[in-house]
């Protein structure tokens, strides 16, 4: 971009947003250089921090007029480099739009701005006996706008769904800065379901400025059954047994030996260190229902050969049992200088096969891997331990990760269950999609953003418009 256009961009955004809401110097831009996948980073032309929807609209209009890329960013907790800045673009940070606009307890909805944190919604509506369902591990920090962009899940999705199941309506701005509302306060829309298309679109189709979320009644009771198993296979079979018995647990998580030990060192939650795998099975509902399901789950786990069993005694104990799981990533992170978190989803029946294959890959690459797994919905989070200061380790970790995701596709799954494609998995998209399918996705992108200025270089590979396309610089196109 010529210097003159750069100055024009800065001058006009300063005029609309005020100098305090623009960051131009590189040192102050550093906190925005990456999301939580820190191996991919870059600096933008400038960071814009609008305080109002009108200011967001002005940023988009200016960028549209000057043909400048726009990368939206929430809290920066994403795990696929979806919010990595574009070196020739504006990083549009939406954190200052952090207002809960309205709560309607009777209709069980809340209207919130995109910068509101996931947990803040549940906290704000708790007094009405309600909460917001999806609960990613980063829920203290992650923003609801980012949740919409990634279609975030969490440990409760099997029963309560993903973001796409828990939002009703979005106020969006098109790449040209035009405002419209999609979805409705009812349960569907008159035309195409743009809610489905926008949720999980990684900031490639438009910018979300307000979200109407559905709220759920807080369950009367919830209890966790933790079971240790002597093999991963046995734990996998026990997951199938729970589902077959007609119980949909609120959460059903599996951890393998390395993850158990790391989490126990970190949280002292009372996990059985000698187990090859543990299951954490939470059931919720009415008091009577929870009693009934806990006793069914205990019987099932016993009959499937559990080597240990713990039932949460009270709320504090239940929180402690979850604390180990929820802190598993940082806990595993203490075992090595860095870890690389993968996100493939597989059919539940393939768990043992995939974990055993992964074990062999781990030996091949001489890199340890800890497994944390949303077992109820087949979403794997292998954590590959490596040293980012060693280029050879980085290369091996990336190759190891790619092989895991390709294996997930081979057994009938997908390359990402809830973290998104971003920059990270762009090169893996052809392992899940044919050329015609990728071209169809590209045509969808083109329908919303013909100049390809929204979050370029992420999400969906661009095949046919490559000459005119402003891809990311080659240093980000890892092979």
């Amino acid at each position, binding site marked *: 971009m010529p210097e003159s256009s750069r100055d024009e961009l800065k001058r006009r955004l300063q005029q609309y947003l005020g100098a305090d809401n623009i960051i131009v110097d590189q040192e102050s831009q550093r906190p925005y250089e990456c999301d939580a996948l820190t191996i991919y980073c870059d600096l933008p032309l400038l960071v814009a921090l609008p305080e109002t929807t009108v200011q967001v609209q002005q940023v988009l209009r200016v960028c549209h007029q000057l043909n400048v890329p726009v990368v939206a960013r929430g809290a920066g907790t994403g795990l696929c480099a979806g919010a990595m800045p574009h070196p020739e673009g504006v990083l549009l940070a939406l954190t200052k739009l952090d207002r809960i606009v309205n709560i309607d*307890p*009777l*209709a*069980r909805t809340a209207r919130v701005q995109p910068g509101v944190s996931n947990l803040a919604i549940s906290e704000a509506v708790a007094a*009405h006996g*309600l909460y917001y369902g999806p609960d990613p591990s980063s829920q203290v920090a992650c923003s609801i706008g980012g949740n919409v962009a990634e*279609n975030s899940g969490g440990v409760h999705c099997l029963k309560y769904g993903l973001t*796409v199941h828990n939002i009703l309506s979005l106020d969006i701005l*098109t790449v040209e800065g*035009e*405002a*419209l509302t999609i979805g*409705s*306060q*009812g*349960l*569907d829309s*008159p*035309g*195409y*379901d743009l809610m*489905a*298309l926008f949720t*999980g679109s990684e900031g490639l189709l438009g910018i979300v400025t307000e979200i109407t979320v559905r709220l759920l*009644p*807080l*369950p009367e009771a919830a209890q966790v059954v933790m079971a240790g198993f002597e093999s991963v296979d046995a734990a996998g079979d026990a997951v199938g047994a729970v*589902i077959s018995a*007609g119980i949909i647990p609120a959460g059903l998580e599996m951890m393998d030996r390395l993850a158990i030990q790391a989490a126990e060192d970190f949280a002292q939650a009372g996990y059985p260190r000698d187990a090859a795998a543990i299951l954490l099975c939470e059931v919720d*509902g*009415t*008091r*009577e*229902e929870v009693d*009934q*399901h806990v006793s069914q789950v205990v019987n099932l786990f016993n009959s499937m050969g559990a080597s240990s069993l713990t039932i949460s005694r009270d709320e504090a104990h239940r929180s402690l049992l979850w604390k180990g799981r929820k802190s598993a990533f940082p806990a595993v992170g203490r075992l090595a200088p860095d870890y690389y978190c993968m996100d493939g*989803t*597989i*059919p539940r029946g393939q768990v043992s096969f995939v974990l055993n294959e992964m074990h062999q890959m781990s030996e091949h690459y001489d890199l340890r891997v800890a497994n944390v797994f*949303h077992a109820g*919905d*087949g979403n794997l989070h292998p954590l590959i331990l490596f040293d980012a200061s060693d280029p050879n380790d980085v290369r091996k970790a990336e190759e190891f990760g790619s092989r895991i995701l390709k294996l997930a596709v081979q057994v009938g*799954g*997908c*390359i990402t*269950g*809830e*973290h*998104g*494609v971003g920059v990270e998995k762009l090169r893996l998209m052809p392992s*899940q*999609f044919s050329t*015609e*399918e990728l071209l*169809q996705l590209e045509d*969808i*992108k083109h*329908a*919303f953003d013909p100049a390809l200025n929204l979050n370029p270089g992420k999400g*969906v590979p661009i095949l046919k418009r490559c000459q005119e396309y402003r891809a990311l610089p080659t240093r980000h196109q890892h092979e």
Partner: protein
Amino acid sequence: MSEEPKPAGLDASDHSEAIVTSLVQAREEGRPVYISAGGSKRHIAGRDCDSDILDVSLHRGIVDYQPQELVITARAGTPLTELIAALQEHNQMLPFEPPLFGGKATLGGTLACNLSGPARPFRGSIRDAVLGVQLINGKCELLNFGGKVMKNVAGYDVSRLQAGALGTLGVISEVSLKLLPQPEKTLSLRYEMTVGDAIECMNRRAGEPKPLSGAFWFNGELTLRLSGAASAVDSTATQWGGDILEAADNTWERLRDMTLPYFANDEPLWRFSVNPAATISAATDSSLIDWGGAQRWLRGEYPQQELQQAAARAGGHVTLFRGGDRAAEVRSPLSGAEQHLQQQLKHAFDPDGILNPGRLYSWL
């Protein structure tokens, strides 16, 4: 049931190639098609479409069903009754309780029309249950999106986009759905109530952590349905009181299939999809209110624009679901900006406009 459900992978009912061939021919001849299988939705949900019929009814059968995975994959022409029978053997069900329309309703049509029954607010719609689709777009390409797993965020959600698109973005070929176990017990409670009180009551009850699975009001009576663990159903029924409906009562099935007397005449039938707690001034007393207040049926001749304005005030939209002038627009209008996006999207899937033209809107 005319046929036994077929075991996975053993039937010879994969007609996707034949459908592609027909579509290629239609495209070359510049001849748009109207996609049809069971024909149960020919004159409902959207505008009438007079294009030549592309019959996909032979493309049927269960492709894969793994009860432990809570997932079924079937071809679009599969009658829902066939799916339901296969699921029942494993004590499972389609979460969205779709209308069966006398056994004629098929999987593809149900997804295309996004039709779900009384359980919809509590267990989700067919749109919510879709995990993946195989689709033939307007360029006659056979494409797969989504998959057979619970979570998948690679690429845009083309699968759910098919829900309610009325076949205008592609010929749905196969669908993978998330399933649920059948509830251990179901019980219905009835109360005499005015419409205003009933709307409030439905919403208040839906905000309680109880196993509510249906809530509808008609003609001074509110009916609530509880489904789930027997212990939870029984304790809730005790707490909530009301008259318990006999187990043999088939009101919910008739509500689902639109065979209650309310639906049994030729008058125009309007479907409001609105904020469940909203008050709609237009003829609320003579409505049938389902989905805990979020879906409201209204029978009779009304000025369409007035109903559209009332629906908009109630945070939603209204469709002339059945009857009336089906050559005119039947759905609430969209803003100029949204109309433009929808046209661009249609063009991205069907550049020559050969798939169900005008079925959703005259301009799509």
